[in-house]
Each structure stands twice: as C-alpha cells, then as structure tokens.
C-alpha cells in the first residue's frame, strides 16, 4: 500500500511517500496511524497528536474509523489551509 505525507506531516516523517506492507490487525485509518507512530521517533513526532492529523483514502477524505482494506493510496496531512 502506498502511503503519502503532506506539509508538516511530511517534514516530520522525512519522506513524501513510501510502500508499506500492512501487518495483520491494522484495519482502519486510526490503526494505521498508530502502527506508523511506532516505527520511529520521526513517525512518533508526526503522529504525536493523532486527532490533528487528517487522512484520505484513494484521494477522498476519510474518518479515523474508516476501513483501509483494498485501498491503493492513503495520505496523511494537517488540516487544510488553502483558499
């Protein structure tokens, strides 16, 4: 599964995108954020306040409880500040 990061989430993680093999038990966006947060200090920093980090599944906004099975691309990013 492809994971992408944007803005300060990208800066903290240190990469723009990566391919990740999902371990068993990672079923929702919240599960994935918690799994990523355990991968190292940079990830822990990016996901230190998981309620602030937003996500999209296949380029559509999704809630933390959304299931991720079958997704091709998941993105994590801060609240949007465009316009």
């Amino acid at each position, binding site marked *: 599964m492809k994971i992408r990061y944007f803005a300060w989430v990208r800066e903290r993680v240190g990469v723009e995108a990566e391919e990740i093999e999902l371990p068993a038990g990672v079923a929702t966006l919240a599960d994935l954020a918690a799994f990523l947060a355990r991968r190292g200090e940079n990830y822990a920093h990016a996901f230190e306040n998981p309620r602030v980090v937003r996500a999209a599944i296949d380029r559509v906004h999704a809630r933390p409880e959304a299931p991720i099975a079958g997704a091709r691309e998941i993105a994590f990013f801060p609240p949007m*500040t465009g316009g």
Partner: protein
Amino acid sequence: MFTVRIQSAPFDAACEAAALSDGRQDVGALVTFTGLCRADDAAPEAGGRLVALTLEHYPGMAEEEIARHVEEARRRWPLMGATVIHRHGRIVPGEPIVLVVTASAHRGAAFAAAEFLMDWLKTSAPFWKQEEREAATGWVDAKAADDDAAGRWDPLP
C-alpha cells in the same frame, strides 16, 4: 462550462469571468471572487513581515475534491457555469491565489454558490500554506472560523 484548474502560474480573473458568458445571452449574473496573498506585518517575535506564501498541494486529489464541491454546488443552485482556479507554489503579497467564478440567471444563486465553493475550498481542498517571513518560516494553522463557515451549509438530503 465547468472548470477546475490547479496551476502555479497567475491567472487573469477578468478573462476567466468573460469566458463564462461569452457567446450566450442567458447568463444574468456573474460573480467573481479572487483571493489574494495579503501582506501582514506580524510582530518581530512572530517572524516579522510576510515575504511570501508557498502552497503545497495533493496533486490529483486537489482537482477531484474541488470538482466534488462544484458538483454539489450544481445540485444546490441552477448554475450555468463555474470556474475554480487554485495556485500552488511560491506566491508573494499582491498576487492572486484562488479564483471562483459562478454564472447563473440570477444573482442569488451566483453569490451563494461562489460563497459555498470558497467556504469548502478553505477547509477541504488539500492545500497547505507555508509562510516565509523576514525572520521565520512556518506552516499556517487552520482557523476554526473557516470550519464554522463551511459548517453552516446544511448537508443535502
């Protein structure tokens, strides 16, 4: 004509607006909103004068997310056309960032649709502003007021 464009180049708001009514006689209201990069003088301890904004975006999703809101605007109001342009990259004070043009037979629908599109652009289009100030660089925080503005539009049944 309904158009969504994400680009780094500046745009000409007057040309974009004219394109929605050229050659037709049924458009009675054309609303054009341009959002500009505004110079603001923060205190020295907050970084000082704004030098530029750099907008990062999620390619693909940015177009699709805005298009979803244009589709919703079309379900809410009788629009004859709409153009949304959002720039990315480095933008200095005085330059345009975002354009929303809506065309309808009457002004009520055109005004409302333009405001609806801007409210959702602020809170759901995947763009992130980074401020470059004289003495500091940092990401802009999202504003609760923008969430409130988007939240006042009742969901469609």
